[in-house]
């Protein structure tokens, strides 16, 4: 276990080095956040009754999403993992007494956390002091906030476990591009990264709730904004745990398969 913590630590400190990238990211996220809220407001003004979430909850959802983007965006992947597979540098990792799956898991969790830590505070602080309709509200209650933190961690782990599948598939497909594009666009849409899940038609929602994508950012962001609580929340947490277990079991099995039949590319 200690070796994987060391991976986490090294990756985390490495991630904190990239200050300019963080600054650029924050600017993008502010712009994107404002843009999204304005679009939702236009819809809200047209017909407030048709809105499945309150405007304030929607704004909170969007700011939280922007602040913690790095935790949940599946398109932000570890390029160096793809590089090691494509170039054959993975040979070195295989010469070490480490499980490839666990190593990559801790590594990508660390990168996501370090990125989020660098970016979230300025966004959150500014978002709290914005004018009424754009403002990020306080959490519904301390109890909600506690669950928000727990599900945030679970959501992060589900996201990482899911992207692990993409890394492992690359063992088999040689080039990561295809799998990556299909998976990431799918996740973005079904996880509520483009529009929150309550905005989907009711029939869709019933299906989407059962998919792993709903166990990522959907749960913490909606608990924070108060659009999810009680029995619905309990069910969502159970789904998170189930998907985490399923994805990790499948991923590490697949990775072990891949290690056995891997061909190292390049001389």
């Amino acid at each position, binding site marked *: 276990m200690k070796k994987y*913590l060391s991976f986490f630590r090294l990756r985390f400190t490495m991630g904190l080095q990239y200050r300019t990238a963080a600054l650029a990211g924050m600017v993008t996220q502010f712009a994107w956040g404002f843009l999204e809220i304005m679009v939702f407001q236009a819809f809200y003004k047209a017909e407030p009754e048709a809105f499945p979430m309150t405007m304030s909850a929607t704004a909170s959802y969007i700011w939280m999403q922007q602040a913690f983007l790095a935790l949940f965006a599946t398109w932000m992947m570890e390029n160096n993992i793809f590089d090691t597979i494509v170039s054959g540098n993975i040979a070195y990792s295989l*010469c070490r007494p480490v499980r490839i799956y666990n190593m990559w898991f801790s590594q990508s969790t660390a990168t996501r956390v370090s990125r989020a830590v660098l970016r979230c505070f300025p966004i959150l602080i500014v978002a709290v002091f914005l004018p009424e309709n754009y403002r990020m509200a306080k959490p519904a209650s301390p109890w909600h906030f506690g669950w928000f933190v727990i599900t945030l961690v679970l959501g992060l782990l589900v996201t990482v476990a899911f992207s692990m599948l993409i890394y492992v598939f690359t063992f088999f497909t040689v080039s990561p591009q295809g799998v990556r594009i299909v998976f990431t666009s799918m996740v973005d849409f079904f996880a509520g990264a483009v529009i929150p899940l309550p905005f989907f038609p009711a029939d869709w929602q019933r299906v989407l709730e059962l998919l792993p994508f709903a166990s990522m950012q959907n749960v913490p962001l909606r608990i924070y904004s108060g659009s999810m609580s009680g029995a619905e929340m309990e069910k969502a947490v159970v789904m998170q745990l189930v998907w985490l277990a399923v994805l990790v079991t499948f991923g590490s099995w697949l990775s072990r398969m891949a290690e056995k039949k891997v061909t190292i590319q390049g001389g």
Partner: protein
Amino acid sequence: MITMEHVCKSYKIAKRNAGFGEAFKALFHREYEVVHALSDVSFTIRDGEMVGYIGPNGAGKSSTIKILSGILTPDSGVVTVDGRIPYKNRMEHVKEIGVVFGQRSQLWWDVPVIDSFELLKDIYSIPGEIYRNNLEELTELLHLSELLRSPVRQLSLGQRMRCEIAASLLHSPRILFLDEPTIGLDAVSKIAVREFIQKQNEIHKTTVILTTHDMQDIEALSKRIILIGKGKILLEGTLEDIRRGDAGIDETVAELYRAYEIE
């Protein structure tokens, strides 16, 4: 002790001719060619030996190293390293070996060398005292004291290779695989690397298996040579066995390649 008996390994390679039409055809029907990287390879290496494994590009040297280090599974044959089957129990096996691939890097690019070393300490669960002793010894022998605190991306190739070699020896492995460790190095670095390997073998009795195209490496390091070509072992013996008259080592080997038609 390392033994390989009748080991075979082949790869499937997709092939097509040049041109758009051919590329389009390959979408529907792909032609494969089977390349025999190793066919019926057998040899034994005793503890503490230093063996040069030579042969032209594509002869099967790297495949052999990969099989011995547990990365690659052979199609058939028996491989044992100190009684272990490398690819059966990779995790147990790799604790006891050190590997350097001259054309790849194991150090983390963006952080100082010492950070990579500390990580390796945790990966191999090296006890604190052993780690400190090994680090001290390696720092002295490979002249690393100036390098340890620099980020890897700012090291020259020679400096990096010294760090790579140190990295693979921190956990005091009993066997060291060196796959072209002197590739691209200048004269000074080459000599430093050779001297170090020599010392490591003398002091710690580390078994060393070295692949290289640099015949001076072989001349300086290995008493025993295994020549491989087209996936087969062609010759085993000492440098003196194969040398004719006072021909230089490069000429001798070129002569051998020609004699076996493996150029």
